[in-house]
Structures are given as structure tokens and as C-alpha cells.
């Protein structure tokens, strides 16, 4: 039996009169975003890549709006979506890729995890303070220059070392992370904190103390 491998070859749609497989990812992304927002694409991802989920979502939209159901976002469909402007665009003259919206979700999540691991049970202000210390370290020359770098620096946080950090953070931890990212710093610029009752690190006691919040002493 001879198995024929049929390579499916999608044409690049240059003139943008229909958004379909192989279309410019910019345009695809905009279509996907609308479909997602309106609930037509429940488990697809807005990634600029036209796949079967996108096609299905378009079909859903077309069905709901009395359009010809063919899974292609052509003139009528795009106009119905309010994306008529995509049709006018001439083929891209540069290869400039419009940047994806960088999500702050990963930073927020990481910070929330760290808060949950390090300051669970502390007053809300203590949680924001812990996140603020992490952010202060990012700015500070003696520490790594990224949030992940600071959190995962070997030996820096006990909750990271013993895996406590990997529990699912709660609502309050998320808000605390967001508040710290938005600029609230209840620690007044601290880059160290410790629990004087449980800390075994003697060096840290030599750091100038800024204040105490809950069980933690904050120092610079």
C-alpha cells in the first residue's frame, strides 16, 4: 500500500480580503480577541494563529448573526464584527510584528505565590510588604534584576526552597501582589525581612531595622 503524504499548502493571504488559515497574525489576533470577548471562542487562545478553534468560533458567530457559515472571516463577517478596517489594510510593508500584550499575569502570579508561601496568616499589610521587598530587591544593585531572579535566587526565600510557594494563592494574596506592583510599599524600602522568633541567620540581625509588621521585622 502506498501511503500518499499530502502536504497541505496554505497560501499566504496577502491582500487581506478574508481572514483564514495563514492570515497575518495581527489581524487574526484581533478577530480572535473579539470572538473571545463575546464568548464565541470558549477554549481557544488569542495567539494570532488561525487554527480550527478559531474557525469554529467564526462559524458560531456567523450562525448567530445570520451570515453564511463557512468559517472564513470575509468582508461581511468582518464588518459584522466591527473589524472592517482590517480589510482596508494593504499588505504589511515591513516585517514589524506588533507586540503581543505582555501579560503581567506571570509576575502577579509569582508574587502571589511568594506572598502565600512567605506571609500566609500575616496581616494584609504584611503581605503587601513582603511583595514590596521583592520588588525593592529587583531595583537594588546587590540583587538579581528580575522578579523571577529575586524569588528563585538560591537560598533567598525559605518558602521557595521547601516548595511551600507552589500552593495555589488565595484572592487576598493576588490583591496584595497587585497593590505592591501598583506602587504601595508598606515596608518603606526594605530589602530584607525576617521572623526574629524563627530566624537562624545571625547576620541578618545586623541590618538596620526599618519597622516591624506582624511577625516580620523589615530591614535595609
Amino acid at each position, binding site marked *: 500500500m502506498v501511503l500518499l503524504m499530502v502536504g497541505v499548502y496554505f497560501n499566504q493571504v496577502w491582500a487581506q480580503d478574508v481572514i483564514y488559515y495563514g492570515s497575518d497574525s495581527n489581524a487574526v489576533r484581533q478577530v480572535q480577541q473579539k470572538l473571545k470577548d463575546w464568548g464565541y471562542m470558549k477554549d481557544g487562545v488569542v495567539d494570532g494563529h488561525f487554527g480550527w478553534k478559531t474557525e469554529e468560533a467564526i462559524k458560531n458567530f456567523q450562525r448567530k448573526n445570520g451570515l453564511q457559515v463557512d468559517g472564513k472571516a470575509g468582508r461581511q463577517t468582518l464588518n459584522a464584527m466591527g473589524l472592517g478596517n482590517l480589510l482596508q489594510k494593504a499588505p504589511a510593508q515591513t516585517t514589524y510584528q506588533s507586540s503581543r500584550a505582555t501579560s503581567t499575569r506571570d509576575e502577579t502570579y509569582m508574587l502571589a505565590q511568594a506572598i502565600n508561601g512567605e506571609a500566609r496568616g500575616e496581616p494584609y499589610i504584611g503581605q503587601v510588604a513582603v511583595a514590596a521587598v521583592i520588588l525593592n530587591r529587583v531595583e537594588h544593585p546587590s540583587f*538579581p534584576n528580575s*522578579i523571577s531572579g529575586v524569588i528563585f535566587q538560591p537560598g533567598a526565600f525559605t518558602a521557595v526552597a521547601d516548595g511551600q510557594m507552589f500552593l495555589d494563592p488565595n484572592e487576598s494574596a*493576588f490583591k496584595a501582589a497587585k497593590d505592591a506592583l501598583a506602587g504601595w510599599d508598606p515596608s518603606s524600602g526594605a530589602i530584607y525581612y525576617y521572623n526574629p522568633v524563627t530566624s537562624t541567620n545571625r547576620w541578618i540581625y545586623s541590618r538596620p531595622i526599618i519597622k516591624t509588621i506582624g511577625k516580620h521585622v523589615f530591614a535595609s
Partner: protein
Amino acid sequence: MRDRRKITTWLLIAAFVVAGIWGFTQYNQKNDYRTFLENQYLNEFYSLLNSIEGIEALLAKSMISQSDEQMSLIFTETWKNADLAQNNLSRLPISHLALNETSKFLNQLGDFSYSIGKQTINGKKINDNQWEDLERLHNSSSYLITSLQKLHQDMIDGGAMQFGELREKGRFALGRASDNVIQDSLTRVEKEMTTYPKLIYDGPFSSHLSEIKPKGLKGEGITRKEGEKEIISFLGSDRVGEINQLSRGEGVVNTYGYEVVPYGEDGDRRAYVEVSRTGGKVVWMMDSKVVENVTLTMPKALERANNFLKDKGFSNMTPSYSEKYNGVAVFNFAYEQDDVLIYPDLIKVQVALDNGEIIGFEAQGFYVAHGERKISEPEISLDEAKDMVSNRLEIFKERLAIIPTEAKEEVLCYEFKGNFQDDTFIVYINAETGEEQQILKVIQTNTGDLTM
């Protein structure tokens, strides 16, 4: 009877064998992980060594290079290497204490190279102080190489690498090396590139200004009791139940800390407030309220925030950016004078989106930077400034603004907001020199616009 004994014996033997096999596979697995981990560490170590050797060579070359282009290239390479080295260093399994100074050194080396690189691009020559700094930096990097190479030699000589050897010996070697590394004599420069997107101006420019004296706080020192009165006036007596004292704060602004139990609260909700010891102003406030149902729209929330500020005596505050998350809206306000938006005078207000209560307030930026300002006339006109902006940018908004620089100074600029393809950018043109002072990229997230 005998049979049962036999079965039990066999069962026991089987159990032992299973346990043995399990133990053996666990042991192998552990070794695999250990090796993998150790390899990662070694990878970082070699990369570090490589980068520092690169830095040493580059700095040596910089001493004798004449051309501006060469210099610029050399320092850009150095900056890149310093950054990479710092990264590698921070991933080694060596205690932060031993690495502290070296890390600082690398960071400052990076910043310094960056700013010299920028300087030489603009044709400015390196002055004598900077030559001295360069020599010192070069010497420090040589020391570092020697220590690292010795460490490497030790590890090889030891024969088969023991797990944790890097950690043990490394701590010692790097601790010693850092004694020879010179820090504070380097001219202080802060990095310009931010590492994560933030709400504008709290944000790419704001950091913890530890040597700065607050300009906006004048007057007498106050007592704890007076602080409490200020809180009641700030929050409203209907909101305040009990006030408890918390720790004092020693930072850029010295404060008294308080915990406020809301009136009639029988749960965990608290508001935390810090009042400045000089002048008795509320520097920040944070309410731990959890918002369940969002019913307020952003424009309405903005109205509340605006009214709140006016009520507290802050006039001429213009909203600049906003964010919405977890049922709250955060608004950034900047002070406006003579049609110039002054970003360093920053106040943030958080509004609860269920009932419009003000549950967050942050004015440290404002109190540190705000003072009497005499704003000079721009040297170049709006049109001249506009010419300096790349014509690939479709500008849709323009105004004058004062922005902070990385050297913690303030600069008057024309602010142009525009689009390029599908991205939005903000370009600042220095109103005196016409130079492109700063470019920010607006990152649109589903919680608000951030800049990077």
C-alpha cells in the same frame, strides 16, 4: 501450619525484594537529579567565568581605544557581559552574603558601562575621573577572574566532582574575591531600562530614593496623638472605630504607623495608615477590604477619586493612568502647573468598585518631590520638537510635561503620544536641547495600560 509459615516467609521475602528494588530505583533517580542539578550549576559557573573574562578584555581595550564608535561598541559589549554575569552569579548555589558585593560590583559595572557607552555615542569624551574609575573596574575584574579560575582549578584537582563542592568552595572563593572589589567609589548611576511593566511613573522612574529629603513636608514634628487626629480627619470619623499604634517607619519619610479598625467591624478588615512625623500628613493608606461585586464604572470611580483629592486639599491634580483589578480601580494623578504635567508629584488613589469608598492612597512621591517650581520656557517650539520625533509615529496627543530622569533630576519635555502599527508609544523630547529624552512603550493589558 507449616504451609502458613512458608507463605508468610515468602511474603516477607517478596516485601523485602520489592522494598529493595524501590530503594534502588529511588537511589538512581536521586543521582540523576543530582547530576542534572550540578550540571546546571556548572553551566552557570562557566558562563560566569566566560563573561568576566570578556569584561576584563574589553575594559583593557577601552583604555587604549581612540575612536568613539569603538568605545561605544566596547562599552555596549561590556554592559551585556556584566548583565549576563550578574544573572549567572545569582543562580549559583552560593549564599547571597558571599555574592552580595560581587553582585553589586557587576551591577554597577553594567550601569557605568551603559552610561559611558551612551556618552561616547554622543561624542562626549571620557573625563579623568571616569578614566580612573575604568582602571579600577579593570583591576577589580582581574581579581575576580583570578579567584574564579583558582576555584575552577580546585574543583578539577579534587578529582571526581562532589556534589555541593561548588557550593562549599565557591562560597569561600567568592567571599574572598569580593574583598578586593571596590564599590562605592564608582559614580552612582541607575539603570534606565525597567525590567517589568509598571503603571506609568511609578514606574520606569520611581525607585526608592533613599538619600532624598522630602520637599513637600514642612512644619513641626507631631506626636502620636496628633497623628491619630489627622487620620480621623482623613478617613472621616464615621469610618474610624479604634486606632492602634504600629511600628514607626524610618524611610525616605519618617512616619508613625497605625492600624485602624473600621467602625462597627467585627471581622478582619483593617486600614493601615502612615502619617509623616514632620508636618503630620497621611503619606499612605491601605484598606484590606475585599470587594465582591463590581457595580461602579471606571468614570464614576474616577469622579470619586477626584473629589476625594479635592476634599483633602490637593488641587490641580490631573489623572494620568489607571488600572483595574480585583474589584478596585487605581488612578495615578500628577500635579499640573501652567499647563505642564509634573509627573514626579505623584499621588495614587484606590477606589472600591462596589461602593466607591477610597481604600487606598499613596502620596510619598508627591511629598518627596512637590515644591515651588519655577518652570522655564521651553527653548524649542512644539513644532520643532515634533520634527525630532520619528515620522513613523502617528501622533495623536501632545503636551508639555516634567519627567524625572535616572539621575533623580527633573527635565521639561514635550510629551508625544502616538501609534506605530498597532502599538502605542510615548516619546519625550527635551524642551531645551531637542534630544529624545525617553521613549516608553504602552502595554495594553486587560487591567489597564502599563508602560515599559
